[in-house]
C-alpha cells in the first residue's frame, strides 16, 4: 500500500512516499494511524494527524483499498 507524506510527517518518515506492506488485509484508517505511531513514535507528539483517501478526509473506520491514493495529513497551517 502506497502512502504519501507531507509537511512534518514527511520529515518524520524521511520521505514523501512509502510502500507499506505490513498492512494488507482489511486495513482501516485507524490501523494505519496506529502502525505509524508504532513505527515512528514522533507521530504521537503531533497535535493530531488525519488520513486522506483519494483526496478526501477519511474517518478512522474507513477501509483502505489497494488502489486508493492514501495520504497522511499533519495539522494544516495554510493562510
Amino acid at each position: 500500500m502506497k502512502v504519501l507524506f507531507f509537511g512534518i510527517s514527511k520529515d518524520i518518515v524521511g520521505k514523501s512516499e512509502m510502500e507499506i506492506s505490513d498492512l494488507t488485509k482489511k486495513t482501516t484508517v485507524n490501523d494505519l494511524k496506529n502502525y505509524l505511531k508504532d513505527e515512528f513514535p514522533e507521530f504521537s507528539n503531533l497535535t493530531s494527524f488525519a488520513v486522506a483517501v483519494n483526496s478526501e478526509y477519511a474517518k478512522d473506520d474507513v477501509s483502505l483499498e489497494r488502489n486508493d491514493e492514501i495520504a497522511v495529513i499533519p495539522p494544516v497551517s495554510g493562510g
Partner: protein
Amino acid sequence: MNKKIVEIVDTINTSQVYAELSHPHSGGICVFVGAVREFTNNEEVVALEFETYKSMAIKELDKIAEEAFEKWQLNAVVLQHAVGAKKVEEPVVVVGASSAHRSECFEACRFLIDTLKERVPIWKKEIFKNKSVWVSAHP
C-alpha cells in the same frame, strides 16, 4: 452566472483579484490577503515555505467555495493560495467574495479564510535565523 476561481499558484497576483470578483449585480466586494509578517512571537522570520497536497487542496478549496455559495447570495468567489518560499510582505493567500450588498461579502470573505485555514492541506514552515518550524504541528 456565478464566477468561481480556486487555485494553487506559485505567485499571488493581487492586482487581478478585483477584476475577477467584479460583477454587474455586485455592489460590494470584500477581499482578504494574507501576507508574511516579519515577526512571530518576537522572533524574526526570514521566510516562509509553503507545501501542499495539490489535488486534495483544490478539492477542499472548491468545497469551501460551494459552501459559501450555499450560505450567502454571492456572485463571485475567489480562493487562491501560493506555494513555495515567500519573503516578508509577500502575499501567500487571497480570498474574496462579491454580492449585491456588503454584509454578505464581508461574512463570506471571513468564512472563506477561516475555513481555508482549518481544512485545506497546506503546510507552512517558518524559517528563522537558526531554526525552522512546521507551524501548528506540535501542541
